[in-house]
């Protein structure tokens, strides 16, 4: 295995709350290899989006990354970089796209000019050269009639086309890592398929690694190489796409997959995960899933489970998995 492109070590993120700071993400460690697509999946409030923002140091105040966290990108410690150097990486070596393209685009500027500005922020390209590059990029991301579309304003484009503009902007500087936070959640099914296909093809053709944040296991299966499952601010399981989808070990990952309505479950009850996700600061002691877990036993309520390696590529944080692996 080659050296990781991105390495998160013991990442914790906190926000102030009544009675002190509350950690919304705790002890997250992850790595992404060059060219690889890693999906981080979880339900709302699990901390997946804020983890993605931390990678480019975009945590909104008053949130902060806790001491002891480390983010290494191409061997450099991002948390130790001066702001100017961080800016040079963000948008150039690391591209980003988000769920709602409308809120990421300036409504009063033509979309071509917005992408051009992004290029000129990072290079000394002349306006004419940058404009030519924008047309190329629009063509690359499948925007029909690119020479005309660069003059469009965001409101004149459909949701799918706006997301293509965002992808063009994110890919403009040939980043080594693309962070995509729920890039297709706001899109219709037929458009979602087009955009996922585009992300998959761009990653393959340019060798750009992708960190995909999603709540949708279908999307995971279609684009990811590896998967990390988050619950209550922690990674509870990670593995290859095949391992997580076919053979999940953590009861939360198992429960999530079983609760998806599928054709072969017709006429049968869906398996539920009882209760609801506890809020940050109200996480139980021991294993954070212990209030909802169907297999909970005494130890789960007392002791935080350690990361148990199940295969060279799969690991889970669960006492049951640990007991099974020892047996």
């Amino acid at each position: 295995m080659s050296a990781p492109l991105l390495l998160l070590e013991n990442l914790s993120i906190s926000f102030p709350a009544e009675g002190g700071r509350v950690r919304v993400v705790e002890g997250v460690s992850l790595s992404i290899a060059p060219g690889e697509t890693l999906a981080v999946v979880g339900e709302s409030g699990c901390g997946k989006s804020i983890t993605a923002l931390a990678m480019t140091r975009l945590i909104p105040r008053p949130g902060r990354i806790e001491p002891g966290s480390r983010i290494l990108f191409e061997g450099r410690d991002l948390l130790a970089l001066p702001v100017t150097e961080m800016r040079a990486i963000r948008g150039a070596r690391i591209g980003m796209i988000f769920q709602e393209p409308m809120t990421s685009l300036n409504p009063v500027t033509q979309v071509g000019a917005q992408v051009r500005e992004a290029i000129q922020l990072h290079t000394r390209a002349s306006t004419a050269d940058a404009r030519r590059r924008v047309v190329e990029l629009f063509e690359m991301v499948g925007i029909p009639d690119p020479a005309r579309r660069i003059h469009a304003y965001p409101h004149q484009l459909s949701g799918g086309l706006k997301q293509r503009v965002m992808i063009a902007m994110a890919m403009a500087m040939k980043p080594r890592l693309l962070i995509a936070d729920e890039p297709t959640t706001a899109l219709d099914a037929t458009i979602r398929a087009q955009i996922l296909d585009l992300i998959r093809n761009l990653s393959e053709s340019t060798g750009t690694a992708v960190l995909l944040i999603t709540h949708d296991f279908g999307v995971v299966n279609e684009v990811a190489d590896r998967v990390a499952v988050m619950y209550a601010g922690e990674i509870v399981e990670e593995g290859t796409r095949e391992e997580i989808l076919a053979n999940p070990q953590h009861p939360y990952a198992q429960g999530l997959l079983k609760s998806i309505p599928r054709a072969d479950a017709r006429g049968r009850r869906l398996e539920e995960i009882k209760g609801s996700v506890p809020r940050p600061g109200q996480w139980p002691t021991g294993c954070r899933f212990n209030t909802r877990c169907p297999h909970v036993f005494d130890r789960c309520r007392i002791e935080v489970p350690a990361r148990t390696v199940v295969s060279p590529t799969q690991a889970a944080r669960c006492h049951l998995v640990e007991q099974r692996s020892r047996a």
Partner: protein
Amino acid sequence: MTEASDPLLELHGLRAWFPVRSGVLRRTTGHVKAVDGVDLSIYPGETLALVGESGCGKTTVGRAILRLTEPTDGSVWFEGVNVSALPSAEFHRYRQRIQIVMQDPASALDPRFTVRDAIAEGMEAFNIGKDHDDRTARVAELMRKVSLDPETMWRYPHEFSGGQRQRICIARALAVEPSLLICDEATSALDVSIQAQILNLLSDLQKERKLTYLFITHDLGVVRYFADRVAVMYLGKIVEIGPTERLFAEPRHPYTRALLASVPSLDPARRRMRPAALGDVPSPEHPPPGCRYHPRCGVRLPECSLEEPPAVRFPDGMSRCVLARQDSDALAQ
């Protein structure tokens, strides 16, 4: 499915157009044809899913049934009565029998109402229950039914989670004993583990109360699991109707095929999803001539851009495509 019985609800040529005004005089310069000639029957006890992408008009169909949006043309028949022609005072009587549960339970509940009052509001409007105490007892019963603790009935909606609020909305809809429940993206805003809880609840309630569901959604996974029949809508028209298993196994309309092909697979042994529809959905203000799907269709014929294809009927449904006519001829032979 109970095709033999009379439909509970029938839509005949339903249209809901919204005027587009422009210029200083705000003159009507066109119409957004959100619903443009929909025929549909829903039978007692079945779950009919109305699926389509945003802007196809599926939500407006639900609103037009309830007359939250007055239909421009066409009629809505409920239990054999043309309810779209009734004066609003008389329609009120039927309104009790048709209830709706919407996507966002946070905005569907008045934050100043306790849960007890939110659930009891409809009972008061329709004179259900003897008095205040009797209604409170009924609220407690309904809350137990949807797995909420009746002790919490004096709390306010913000004290509940999203899934619990959706249970409150379901209890409120059931409070007036409807026969038809319209679920408009009722589980779309919920996390998947909570969605499973709500789908199980809806399924239990349907068995117990013989409810009929019109399930409006964009989520084909939910449809395949939950619906008896499916109607696929595109740009204001229904393009295909059929029983769920047949429609998923052998879709007859190219748009249905494209929609199904765009559903991601959960089987790690195969990645299946492929973009099958070309380009974007056109604006409902300027739908393309002929078949509305033809600019995005991979198998279009020259005549598709000229003439609107008729609804071709099959023993188990309908498809609005010239190619379906060939299938239907083949079936007849």
